[in-house]
């Protein structure tokens, strides 16, 4: 439903949210993607933190 259609359909007192109205399936998919990205970024941050502790002062030294 477009925003203009929504405004036509509603009465003048009802506030219309701007933007696209997601279907429940799209909302579920977006939520699952957001959680996955959040978990992945969190794990990456933890990984960098632990490796920094493990490598200690030599964290910038890499064997070739």
């Amino acid at each position, binding site marked *: 439903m477009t925003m203009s259609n929504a405004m036509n359909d509603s009465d003048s007192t009802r506030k219309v949210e701007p933007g696209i109205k*997601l279907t429940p399936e799209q909302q579920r*998919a977006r939520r*699952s993607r957001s959680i996955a990205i959040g978990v992945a970024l969190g794990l990456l941050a933890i*990984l960098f933190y632990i490796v920094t502790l493990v490598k200690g002062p030599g964290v910038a030294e*890499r064997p070739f």
Partner: protein
Amino acid sequence: MSLTFAEAELAVEQGVDPSIAPSIAGARDYLALMKPRVMSLVVFTALVGLMLAPGHVHPVIGLTALICIAVGAGASGALNMWYDADIDARMARTAARPIPAGRLRPGEALAFGLILAGFSVAVLGLLVNVVAAALLALTIGFYVVVYTMWLKRWTPQNIVIGGAAGALPPIIGWASVTGGVTLEPVVLFLIIFMWTPPHFWALALYRKDDYARAGVPMLPVVAGDGATRRQILLYTLVLAPLGVAPWLMGYAGAVYGAAAVAGGAVMIALAVRILVEKQGFRASKQMFAFSILYLFLLFAVLLAEQMSGGLIGYFAT
């Protein structure tokens, strides 16, 4: 970015420009894009390379290397599915993958694959070492560009040359510890490299129609069953002695030697049965199934010997 029909219809209903329509792809679809089963085999062979390598690596660094290799393999899978979506849609075995099934757009898969590839190589280089990162980049590039984009649709030797990408993980695992490459991981590479053609040609023999419909020039489609059956035997005759090489070279024990000899003998027997069978595909199906067990067995015994040796050494000191 192309949309599936259902998504385009939904976008029109929502009054949205189809090019920016919200996606219906969930985390599971992205996980499927990474080919988790292939990824697990890649991680396993990389782990063996990592464990066999001389020297010491901190467990956290070793785990980091394995995670990066797994993500790099996932990136390769995603980029492969992006490029091969048209082929996947025409094959029964792959029609249910996220892109042909309409759950995920090709552009989403491309972006996902590129981001994972970039992150996996960069993190491996930053946290482990540059040689391993370069090898991972080579593996991803070889699989996506050389195999997927070039060889797969062009020559029946596609899986022979392309198999190099699947054979590299033990070398990456080894390089993660040593920062270099020596003959031992190269032998592991050669075992997987020589294993790949008989394994996939055995499958291609009884899936020939599927490949023909998709326009993929697999050996049975182009050269016929007879030539494929002969090629399977030839490659297996090279593979079986190669499988024993780690024992002969002294970096695998007697248990490995026995497993490699027995497994190699069964592989040759199955390859001969495929050649003799002429009609039907019973032996091909057996070869396909056993070849997975054979490769797993070789690497599992290598790993078990290494771990048991380490434990014995630990308790002896």
